[in-house]
């Protein structure tokens, strides 16, 4: 084979290889889509038993423990001892920014 034949064959293999990869993954995509059509009818029956479990599994918050944690956090942030402050009341805020920052922090640590 001369140089140009080698390059020509290489190009042909390149194009063919990419086409085969696409072809196979497109077939898999179509099959998944077909599969989804079949499982849609089934879905109406399935989610029902799953829902109540989730609610039951939600942990009940121990307010004394929560107050202890908040006291410790406030004391640490202010640089005083926990004995010198008293939490009289607390209220959960829908603080979007802090929640988001927290969630992002957790995500970035996990992955």
């Amino acid at each position, binding site marked *: *084979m001369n*140089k140009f*034949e*080698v*390059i020509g*064959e*290489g*190009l042909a*293999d*390149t194009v*063919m*290889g*990419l086409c*085969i*990869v*696409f*072809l*196979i*993954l*497109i*077939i*898999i*995509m179509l*099959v*998944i*889509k077909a*599969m*989804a059509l079949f*499982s849609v009818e*089934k*879905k109406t029956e*399935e*989610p029902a038993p799953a829902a109540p479990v989730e609610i039951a599994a939600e942990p009940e918050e121990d307010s004394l423990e929560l107050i202890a944690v908040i006291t410790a956090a406030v004391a640490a942030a202010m640089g005083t001892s926990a004995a010198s402050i008293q939490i009289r009341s607390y209220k959960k805020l829908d603080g979007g920014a802090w929640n*988001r920052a927290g969630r*992002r922090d957790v*995500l*970035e640590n996990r*992955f």
Partner: protein
Amino acid sequence: MLTKLMDGFGTFFAKTGVAEIFTKLTADDFYGLKTLVMLAIACVLLYLAIVKKFEPLLLLPIAFGMLIANLPLGEVMHMELFIDPHDPNAHLNIQRIVEEGGLLDLLYLGVKLGIYPPLIFLGIGCMTDFGPLISNPKSILLGAAAQLGVFITFIGAILLGVFGIGGFGADGTADTIFKEAAAIGIIGGADGPTAIYVTKTLAPSLLSAIAIAAYSYMALIPIIQPPFMKLITTKKERQIVMEQLRPVTKREKILFPIIVTIVVVLIVPDAAPLVGMLMLGNLIKESGVADRLCKTAQNELMNIVTIFLGITVGATAKADTFLTPKTLLIIALGLVAFCFSTVGGLIFGKIMCKVTGGKVNPLIGSAGVSAVPMAARVSQKVGQEENPANFLLMHAMGPNVAGVIGSAVAAGVFLVLFA
């Protein structure tokens, strides 16, 4: 008495590796110097694995394998049992390997016969959740587009070989050029086991260089990808928030590995060991009936195989095959492959964004390279820099796991064509 003692020390010293290095410093085609360079490279790789944490699970055993195989007179690895310099296509003489080989030679049989990479794929299958892919099937196309780098590098390496740059296809035949180009191209799949599987068949002498390039660049994905992601996509595209993925039923998850195996193996039979084991692992996990097997495959079995694979692949790095311009060129071409794969995925992501009217964030395209889950994590991070409320991770996992299937298929295509 004293002279006898001195003589004893003298003969002992002459038999040590230190003497071997310094007496042959420039003799035997620079044996001593080359050995010192190889030891230095091994130590640099150990540093990268331990301090910089570059894929330490694999790079550490690879680097250590390289270290012990290059200490003179140790002779822990006998490559001449596996590669006959006079006839590269000769059959393996198993009898001779068992009789004359040591620990690493016997363990290397697992690489040579293509046993370890599929076993690692079994474990990966047990750890992979194809749910995001099943719920968004079109993301599988991104896993195909990100194989662009594999094929671009393949043709690039052929061009280098044809014009005699870097010593590819050393014997000058078109066949060797194609085989080596395919093995180098597959680095762009960003999939270590696949790269090793292809290389041990098509170009065994390049095994260590290709494995080291593949694993190093996988570790560097968080540095390689973001510049391309920012260059190719617009700020507005990066801010696109994608619709939440629909939940996937258990039945779909169980059917998926079975169907993929049938489709892929019917069309590309040579991909059967890789895809078959990947999907078997996934079926074991999703079926939920063989929990014990799942645990073993993804923990103990995979860890054992990883140690064997790493140390033997590292031990194949001998000075005469590793210290060549070819190795440097492989490292460079590996980077080219990674870049083009990233670009391929991103461009296809942009096309999908246009076609769907802005529902797809093109950043998930770069996750089509199969380094799971690093590539998906990079998509998530870059997306969140533009829009802190955007969570692309699960969307990017779809193309990411599709990339594993895509690179295994690309490997199968190369094996069909050139093995």
